[in-house]
C-alpha cells in the first residue's frame, strides 16, 4: 500500500527565503506523526504543499500515492491548516453541511463530528459569534467530516483551554488507535510527547531529526547531589569511567541507567560521601528540541 504521506526533495522558496528545503518526509499508515518546529520553521508551508494549496518550487508530494490536483488526492484526507476559516453568516452546523456538500459525503456525519468536538450545544449559532476555542473545535470537526484515513492538523490545540486541550489530545489518540493516520504540527513538546508515535523536527525548513519520542529523548541519566562534590566525582569516575561523569549545576550527572543507581550509592556512601539526592533524570524533550532547532544540524538516528 502507498504510504499516506510521502515527500521527496520537497522545496519551497519565496524569493530569497527558503521556507522548506529538500524535505523527505514519510508518514506511515496508522501512526500519529508529530511535526515539530519553532515559529517559521516551515511546518504550515509543508502541510499546505501536501494539500495542494501551494505549489512546491521543486520536489514531489504523494498522498496515498496521488499527486496534488489528481482526482482522489483529497478523497480521504481531512485537514485543518493554520486556524479555522468558515463563513461568518452561517451557523456552525450549516457550515459543516455546506462542506459536506462540497466533499460529496452527505450530511449524516455532521451531528457525529459536532458531538466529537463537543460543539453540539452551540452548533445552531452563527459562526461569527463563536469564541476562539469554539472556532478551533469547528475546524477540527470539519477536518473529521470525511471520516478521513489521513488527518492533517496544524496546531490543533491552538486557542483551546486546558480541558479542551486534554479532550483534543484524547480525541487524536482515539482516532490514531482507530486506524486513522494523523499528521500534526505543533510547537508544544508536551503535546507531541503525549500523543505521537513518531516525531520529525524541522528547523529553518529542514528536517533535523526524525525518530520515536523515546529515541529522540535519548538515554536516561542519574543525577546525584553529594557532599563533598569533588570527592564524589573522583569516585564516580573510578567506578563508571571518565566519559560517563559530568558536573552539571552543582550535581553529578552520570550517563548510566537506573540499574546502576544502587551500586553508585553504595560506593559513595561507603567512601564517606554524604548523598543527599539520587534520582533518575530523563532528558527533557524540551532540551532536545532547543538543541536541535537552535544549533547546527544534529542528526538523531
Amino acid at each position, binding site marked *: 500500500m502507498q504510504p499516506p504521506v510521502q515527500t521527496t526533495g520537497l522545496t519551497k522558496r519565496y524569493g530569497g527565503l527558503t521556507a522548506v528545503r529538500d524535505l523527505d518526509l514519510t508518514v506511515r499508515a496508522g501512526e500519529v506523526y508529530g511535526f515539530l518546529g519553532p515559529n517559521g520553521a516551515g511546518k504550515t508551508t509543508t502541510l499546505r504543499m501536501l*494539500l495542494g*494549496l501551494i505549489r512546491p518550487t521543486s520536489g514531489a508530494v504523494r498522498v496515498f500515492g496521488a499527486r496534488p490536483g489528481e482526482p482522489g488526492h483529497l478523497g480521504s484526507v481531512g485537514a485543518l491548516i493554520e486556524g479555522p476559516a*468558515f463563513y461568518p453568516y452561517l451557523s456552525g452546523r450549516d457550515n459543516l453541511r455546506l462542506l459536506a456538500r462540497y*466533499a460529496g459525503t452527505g450530511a449524516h456525519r455532521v451531528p457525529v463530528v459536532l458531538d466529537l468536538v463537543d460543539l453540539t450545544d452551540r452548533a445552531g449559532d452563527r459562526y461569527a459569534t463563536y469564541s476562539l476555542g469554539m472556532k478551533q473545535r469547528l475546524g477540527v470537526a*470539519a477536518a473529521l467530516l470525511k471520516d478521513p484515513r489521513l488527518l492533517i492538523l496544524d496546531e490543533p490545540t491552538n486557542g483551546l483551554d486546558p480541558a479542551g486541550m486534554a479532550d483534543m489530545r484524547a480525541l487524536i489518540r482515539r482516532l490514531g488507535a482507530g486506524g486513522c493516520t494523523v499528521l500534526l504540527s505543533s510547537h508544544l513538546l508536551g503535546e507531541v510527547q503525549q500523543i505521537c508515535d513518531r516525531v520529525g523536527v524541522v528547523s529553518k525548513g529542514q528536517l533535523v531529526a526524525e525518530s520515536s519520542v523515546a529515541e529522540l529523548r535519548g538515554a536516561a541519566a542519574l543525577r546525584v547531589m553529594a557532599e563533598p562534590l569533588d570527592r564524589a566525582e573522583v569516585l564516580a569516575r573510578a567506578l563508571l569511567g571518565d566519559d560517563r561523569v559530568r558536573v552539571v549545576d552543582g550535581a553529578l550527572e552520570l550517563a548510566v541507567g537506573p540499574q546502576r543507581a544502587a551500586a553508585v550509592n553504595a560506593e559513595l556512601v561507603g567512601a564517606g560521601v554524604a548523598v543527599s539526592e539520587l534520582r533518575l533524570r530523563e532528558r527533557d524533550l524540551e532540551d532536545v528540541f532547543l538543541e536541535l532547532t537552535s544549533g547546527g544540524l544534529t542528526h538523531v538516528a
Partner: protein
Amino acid sequence: MLRSWQAEMIKLVKRPATWLLLVLALLLALLFTYLFPYASYAGGTGGPNSDRTLPMLLPEQLVGNSLGGLPVFLGAIVLILGVLTVGGEYGWGTWKTLLTQGPTRLATYAGKLLALAVAALVLVLSLFATGAATSVVIAGVESQPVAWPSVADLAVGLGAGWLIATMWAMLGALLAIALRGVALPIGLGLVWMLAVQNLLAVIAAPLLDWVAEAQKGLPGPNAGSLVAALGATGDTPGVAAVVGGGQAALVIGGYLLAFVAAGGLLLHRRDIL
C-alpha cells in the same frame, strides 16, 4: 462541479448581502426608470418633452426600460455581487477550507461562476417582472392601453440582459481573484464603471478620435450599444449606440469568456495563502 454549484447557491441565498444588492438594484431601477419620470409627468414639470414621457413608461417599452441600467449602475451592482462571491473566500480565508474538500480548483471555480450566472438571470428576470408590474399600474392609472412587446423581443431582451449582467459578474470575479480580496476590487471596479467609463465617453472621446475608436472595444460602451439597439433610451447614462447591436453582443460575449478564462488561470496557478 454540480456539488460545488449547489453549495455556492446555498451560500449565495443565505448571505444577507445578496438580497440587499437585489433589493437595491430593483429599487434603483424602479426609481430612475419609472418613478422619477412619472412624478415629473404627473406634476407637469417634464419640460418641453413632457408629452413624450408617458409612452416611455408603458408596458410596450418594457424591454428597453428593463435593460437601460445594465451598462452602468445595475452593472455596478452585479459587479459587486461577483466580487463578494469570489472575494469573500479571500477575506474569510475560506479558500483553504473549500479547496481541501475534494473538488479541484477549477470545479469549485466553475460552481461559483454558474451560481453567479444564475444570480444574474434572477436579477434580470426580477427587473423585467417589477418593470412589467409598474408599467401596468401606470397604464391603468393613466387609462392607457396595455400592449406588450412580442415574445421574441422579450426573449432577446432577457438574453441580452443576462449576457451583460453575467459579463459584469465575471469581471467582478476576475478582479477579486486578481487582487485577492473584496475592498480593492469593489473600489476599482466602481471607479472604472461609474467614473472612468463616463469620463472617457463624455470628455475624452469627443476630443480624441482614437479614444472614440478605442471605446468601441470596451465592455461598457458595447453593453450600452446592445441595450440601445433593444430600445433603451439614450437618456440613461452609458446607453448610446456606438456600435451595432449584433457586434456589441459578440464583443460582450468575448469579454465574458476572457474574464472567465483569466480568472480561472489565475486561480489555478496561484498559491492559496
